[in-house]
């Protein structure tokens, strides 16, 4: 026990002695949490909208006015021709172009139907879908206006059936992205810091040559590993605490569930990451290699965690792959516990999987660590 104490002491001294690293460990993640959480929004607003009006009648102007009044569109310029508008779209000045053809009003009044052509920059497919939805909504409501103003619907005409749908958004009634993203980004930062630090730690001693010195001491394998990893576990928990406080104070993130449950889960989760870091350390010779591997896994874990893009949308094989992603479970648990107030029984599957993962990872790490080459 005393031996472990000493090695822990040594590790802490080494971490805190390196003045360059301290801000990277604590300030950088926190700055990122505070700033970047604001960036993560799928909301589509301030759409750059332009129109070409070949008709120039009161109806076409009324339609444009309708777009102008909408909160989603920034009505840009009136382009004289479709060619000009296309050029503006090429250069990225506009994202949606509406072309009102000649005889728009006449067709509407005489033939009771008129065409309207909408061109949308669809490189961002998801945003394009939303934009198209907004356009349809506005045109739909304009259609109603036209019906009201031009023709008097006789009272006794057959009424069409209508189904009224009432959307109700639970747990996040205002659809605030920050509520969703802050816990997730916090998870990422805790993971990245602990994985990078632990992955680099032992390999660094290897590279500098001090590992051999430790290996000739009478310290046991398990003592050495526990002593090495404990400080990072503390740093991970510390980071989570600071992050939660900031989330509460700055973003007013709801915390409905039990924080004890969250801490209990995190304690196990960090063990998975530390085991993984240790494993990487064991199989690499230089810090450079260790970092490349850690980076490889982190990018995959981040983008396949369901943090930014939903897991249900992935193809089946990819969903199976995500089962091996520890970040996925942490993201799920942190969102369930904080935002929905899920209890112990609700997160039990994630908890058990993470525990199993921790045992396997650390087992492999201890087994593959050799004092003698």
């Amino acid at each position: 026990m005393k031996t472990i104490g000493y090695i822990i002491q040594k590790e802490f001294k080494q971490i805190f002695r390196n003045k360059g690293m301290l801000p990277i460990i604590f300030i950088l993640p926190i700055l990122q949490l505070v700033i970047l959480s604001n960036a993560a929004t799928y909301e589509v607003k301030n759409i750059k909208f332009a129109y070409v009006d070949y008709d120039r009648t009161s109806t076409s102007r009324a339609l444009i006015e309708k777009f102008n009044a909408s909160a989603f569109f920034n009505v840009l310029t009136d382009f004289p021709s479709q060619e000009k508008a296309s050029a503006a779209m090429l250069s990225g000045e506009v994202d949606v172009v509406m072309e009102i053809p000649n005889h728009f009003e006449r067709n509407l009044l005489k033939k009771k139907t008129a065409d309207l052509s909408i061109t949308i920059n669809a490189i961002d497919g998801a945003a394009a879908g939303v934009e198209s939805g907004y356009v349809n909504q506005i045109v739909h409501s304009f259609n109603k206006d036209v019906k009201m103003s031009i023709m008097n619907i006789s009272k006794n005409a057959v009424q069409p059936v209508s189904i009224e749908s009432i959307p109700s958004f639970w747990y996040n009634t205002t659809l605030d992205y920050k509520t969703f993203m802050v816990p997730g980004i916090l998870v990422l930062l805790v993971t990245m810091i602990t994985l990078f630090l632990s992955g680099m730690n032992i390999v660094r001693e290897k590279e500098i040559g001090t590992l051999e010195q430790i290996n000739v001491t009478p310290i046991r394998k398990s003592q050495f590993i526990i002593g090495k990893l404990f400080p990072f576990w503390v740093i991970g928990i510390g980071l989570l605490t600071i992050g939660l406080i900031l989330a509460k104070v700055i973003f007013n993130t709801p915390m409905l569930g039990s924080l004890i449950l969250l801490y209990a889960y995190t304690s196990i989760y960090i063990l998975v990451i530390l085991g993984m870091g240790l494993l990487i350390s064991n199989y690499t010779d230089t810090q450079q290699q260790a970092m490349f591997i850690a980076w490889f896994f982190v990018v995959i874990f981040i983008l396949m965690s369901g943090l930014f893009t939903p897991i249900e949308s992935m193809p089946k094989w990819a969903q199976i792959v995500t089962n091996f992603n520890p970040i996925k479970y942490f993201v799920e648990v942190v969102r369930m516990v904080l935002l929905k107030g899920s209890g112990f029984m609700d997160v039990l599957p994630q908890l058990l999987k993470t525990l199993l993962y921790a045992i396997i990872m650390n087992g492999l790490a201890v087994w593959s660590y050799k004092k003698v080459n």
Partner: protein
Amino acid sequence: MKRFIGFIKKEFYHIFRDRRSLFILFGMPIAQILLFGFAITNEINNVDIAILDHSKDASTEEIINKISASKYFTVKQILTREADIETAFKKGKIKAVLNFEKHFSRNLIKQNQATIQIITDATDPNTANSITNYINAILQNYQQEKNRAIVVEYQIIPQTRMVYNPELKSVFMFVPGVMTIILMLVSAMMTSISITREKELGTMEILLVSPLKPFQVIIGKVVPYIFLSVINAAVIVLLSIFIFKMPLQGSLILLGLESVLFIITSLALGILISTIAETQQSAMMISLMGLMLPVILLSGFIFPISSMPVALQLISNIIPAKWFIIIIKGIMLKGVGMAFIWKETLILMGMTLFFIGLSVKKYKIRLE
């Protein structure tokens, strides 16, 4: 010059000797682009929903069948009480619950109006919003079928044309982003590490007392990485064209030149990091922790920049990746030439010069 070539050779030997790093260097980008190209999408598919049907009549059954027939939704659970909704959401699998009112059919026939409540788990606002929209579209469709007998008069029909990406594939959005991230991080990280490594191992002193000029040392360090990154970029472009069927509307040569420019920008950033960092550890932490999330989040790779708060839109301008993503999308998807992307190109050049200038100023040729 001969000395300089000898030095570059040494650098190549260093890299090629380390088989494992080399494998990671080439294998990783390929694995990542394949994985992400297929897996990352923000389209809605196969969402698990539950039904709470208080009427259980012909109309509700029709609607439920219509919804479960669509590829967007899978009906996973039939609930019987309002209280079950909470439990279903807390378990985390069910993302939406459709709540049909009592006497749905009767209301629809007698009063021409019936009500459905769409309850969504809005912890993920994007998914919640999309689910609501899709269900509404299905309901709309159902109403139209019912109303076919009644002629609806006066209609403006919007003909929507999705340009540059008619099938709305999210691959078109994500592949340029993944390519940028890989080039940026690999280039910046590799150079910063290789220079600090010499510092940490003490061999930098030997290089500094050699007759090579400091800038020759730095250029010699960077040249092999330009070479490696160009190969990486080429592989990624080939994969995106042949596997993900990304169109290449514009000029391949222009795309190549712009990629080289971006690689140089990233390498210059790496050099700058190495002049600040003393140990490999801090170099790596700066390039990984400092670059990864900002590049993912502020470059327009996943989240649209125009929707961000103004302050963040301004900050996004200093992220080189943002400009490169605009350039790649422009060349590959829109088929634009230099006339449309000269501004972005100039910005990248300016950033490169700035990074190099700053590193030259900070570069210490003497030991402390």
